[in-house]
């Protein structure tokens, strides 16, 4: 009987990465631009997407996938925009992975969809590790959460393509320190672009739509 060390050298999440690569190729082939949205629970992902879907639908056929541990609540809210929406319920899993997205996209969305939004489970930790095949990842942080969020959860900010400050209509009520949040984002991810919006008033959404359209045009 003898022991030996065998070198393997493979990514532990290889299966997820392969599924994500397959999705990305499929999105390119079908001309679909895909953005995922991550944030902590209650940062306003669903309200943000409600307005986003309503605005984007004016120019493009859009659809949304939304992940939660349980319930169809968010899908029902997002369907009010008129866009096709599918809920992914993860059970106890704290993040979406590429295989869940793959399964949800079986024979869906309807043909011609140009922009797909994926709302991840509310969590600033676990989604950071899983590539979903999306073209870009947007991290939301609300003014009510505390300006130190980026310092506490650097990994998710490191994997994002854009940060969006939400609920800016509440900034005054919570003594939001805008400079501190921007400084903290820049500390963990120098140069990350930041937009500021209010889903309630609609402030900042024109800029968000313009940003998104530029990225989509560059890809598709």
């Amino acid at each position: 009987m003898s022991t030996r060390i065998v070198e393997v050298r493979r990514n532990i999440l290889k299966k997820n990465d392969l599924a994500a690569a397959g999705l990305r190729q499929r999105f390119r082939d079908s001309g679909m631009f895909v953005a995922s949205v991550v944030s902590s629970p209650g940062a306003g992902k669903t309200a943000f997407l409600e307005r986003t879907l309503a605005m984007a639908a004016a120019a493009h056929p859009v659809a949304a996938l939304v992940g939660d541990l349980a319930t169809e609540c968010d899908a029902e809210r997002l369907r009010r925009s008129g866009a096709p929406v599918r809920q992914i319920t993860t059970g106890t899993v704290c993040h979406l992975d590429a295989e869940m997205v793959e399964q949800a996209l079986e024979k869906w969305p309807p043909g011609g969809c140009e922009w797909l939004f994926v709302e991840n489970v509310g969590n600033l930790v676990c989604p950071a590790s899983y590539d979903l095949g999306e073209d870009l990842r947007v991290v939301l942080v609300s003014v009510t959460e505390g300006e130190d969020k980026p310092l506490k959860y650097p990994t998710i900010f490191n994997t994002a393509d854009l940060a969006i400050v939400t609920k800016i209509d509440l900034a005054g009520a919570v003594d939001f320190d805008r400079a501190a949040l921007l400084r903290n984002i820049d500390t963990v991810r120098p140069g990350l672009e930041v937009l500021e919006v209010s889903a309630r008033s609609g402030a900042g959404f024109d800029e968000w739509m313009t940003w998104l359209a530029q990225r989509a045009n560059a890809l598709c």
Partner: protein
Amino acid sequence: MHELSIALSLVDAVCDELPRLGERVSVRRVVIRVGALSGVVPAALKFAYDVATEGSPIAGSGLDIEEVAGRVLELKGVEVVDANR
């Protein structure tokens, strides 16, 4: 706290490699590299590993974690016991 998901993926990854390790071989130790920016907590992963390996072909194996820089999350190698030799 997604270390259990990561641990289950790790068990899958090791089990994928088993055929090329040969017959009558058992895995004694698994060595992985975890980056500081990977979003994975080594201590939580170690705890999850025992649960994830239970009932699998690599049950009872140990986990060695090398903490490195960056976002690496890699199965580096396995130490196997060869009953044939």
